[in-house]
């Protein structure tokens, strides 16, 4: 296959190829959970396996969230529009890992000690924001189906799903506030998130200017003035 036909194949992949890509992405997203489960049962998670599971699932929830947010910029920069068709799966994997993270905390760590869990949520700021991020993900997961999108209508659905930006910020803050010292790792996540949100803000601003520029009479109007003056 020549490079141009490869490129063409990537730009609009055949349905079979798209299915293959989806299966590959699904497997890659599930792999960390399977590997973690394997390490858990093989007792290879070190001296504090519960902490290891809690941290690993939290890491992957955050990573999947950022990967999901990277879809739109990636699509615009590469022109590979079919990437959008992976986004729901990626978002649902973010929710999957967040659920595992929450389950690890509620079940493995505190063993359903609801009193202690309630105190944690109320008293410990990093848990407050982490819990908020998780709760806010639930409606997004529930309304992720085509049917829900149709019932809600595109605009309302989109408005609701924009809360993912806030969720991602809460998730990064959750990690940032958890660490005792050495904020390098949360800083990396924060910078990636800032880039992903920043590029959107920039696009918005460009779009605003373009619209402004199309309005005759506005200060930034750049269109040709067509005078219709009777001669």
């Amino acid at each position, binding site marked *: 296959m020549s490079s141009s036909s490869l490129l063409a194949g990537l730009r609009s992949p055949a349905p079979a190829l798209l299915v293959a890509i989806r299966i590959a992405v699904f497997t890659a997203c599930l792999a960390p959970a399977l590997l973690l489960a394997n390490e858990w049962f093989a007792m290879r998670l*070190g*001296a*504090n396996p*519960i*902490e290891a599971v809690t941290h690993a699932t939290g890491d992957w929830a955050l990573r999947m969230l950022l990967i999901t947010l990277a879809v739109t910029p990636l699509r615009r920069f590469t022109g590979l529009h079919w990437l959008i068709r992976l986004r729901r799966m990626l978002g649902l994997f973010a929710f999957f890992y967040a659920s595992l993270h929450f389950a690890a905390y509620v079940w*493995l*760590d*505190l*063993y359903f*000690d609801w009193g*202690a869990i309630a*105190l*944690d949520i109320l*008293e*410990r*700021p*990093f848990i407050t924001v982490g819990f908020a991020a998780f709760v806010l993900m639930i409606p997004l997961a529930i309304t992720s189906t085509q049917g829900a999108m149709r019932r809600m209508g595109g605009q309302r659905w989109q408005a609701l799903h924009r809360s993912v930006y806030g969720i991602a910020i809460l998730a990064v803050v959750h990690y940032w506030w*958890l*660490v*005792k*010292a*050495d904020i*390098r790792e949360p800083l990396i996540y924060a910078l990636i998130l800032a880039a992903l949100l920043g590029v959107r803000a920039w696009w918005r601003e460009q779009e605003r200017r373009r619209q402004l520029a199309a309005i005759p009479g506005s200060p930034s109007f750049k269109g040709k003035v067509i005078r219709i003056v009777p001669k």
Partner: protein
Amino acid sequence: MRTFLPHIGRSQDNDNEPHGAPMLIRRPADILPSEITPQDVYRHRRRFMRDAGALALAGSALALGAWPRTSMASVRKLEPLLPSEFSTDEGLTEIESVTSYNNFYEFGTGKTDPMTHAHKMQVRPWTVSVEGLAARARTFDIEDLLRIAPLEERIYRLRCVEAWSMVIPWVGFPLSALLKEVEPLGSAKYVEFVTHYDPEIMNRRPIIDWPYTEGLRIDEAMHPLTILSVGLYGQVLPNQNGAPIRLVVPWKYGFKSAKSIVTIRLTENEPATAWNKAAPQEYGFYSNVNPEVRHPRWTQATERRIGELRRRPTLMFNGYGDQVAHLYQGMDLKTFY
């Protein structure tokens, strides 16, 4: 249940002695490092199989004289050891956990970082300067410190502020024995501990105001529970656990027990402590284990004993209240946290 150590080298003869019985003071074992089977290898054959290659490498390095002295020291057995009335009879935390799950931020903030990197630290020669308000302040060589007082085995609970805990058979002697040697002046109200810091081999990022320092009130420092530890599990202290000498204060959160100490200073005023400087609202000078004082990151009401799945309630003063509560009579421990 107290698990007995498999004995290494020549002395096999005190296995049958009842606990608490006075042990015979034997000549210190002069075993060659090459004769010693590391304890974890002894106990865990599977790991031995995996590590056999590394040991072979170590052996050849030894032959070439290239193996750092610290690594030889890390399997050296400390004998004889006196039992202690302060020891708990709770089940010991596995030595693999005690030596692989460490907070020693000089070597990295990950729990296994110290195990990976602490071997770079040279722990011989080593001196500890005992200075400040003392009539006979002076510098001690580590070999002299080992002879300050008979070495005891102290099996203590260790409660980390991160809400996990261990039971560790420390080897050491009371800090009071050293302090008495230097004759503290009446004006000495506090003891400051300064730890080793070498930017060449340690963390250079200023996540803590290096060197790590800690402090105790003089009565806390003189308390018989407070020890300087030089070993654990009957062996010389591994580097990641704070070799060659560290503080152990079992009724306080683990970070109070400073590792790899180079200076002990008697002062009139309360010394600044590393974590208190880093986050004063989270870590107070006293930092006694206290399930009542809430912490913004971790519940202090419960803890996970390493090796167990369920949390257990955290005890006031980590269960040492009978011995130490009187030190804090009339103090509001929520204010002086």
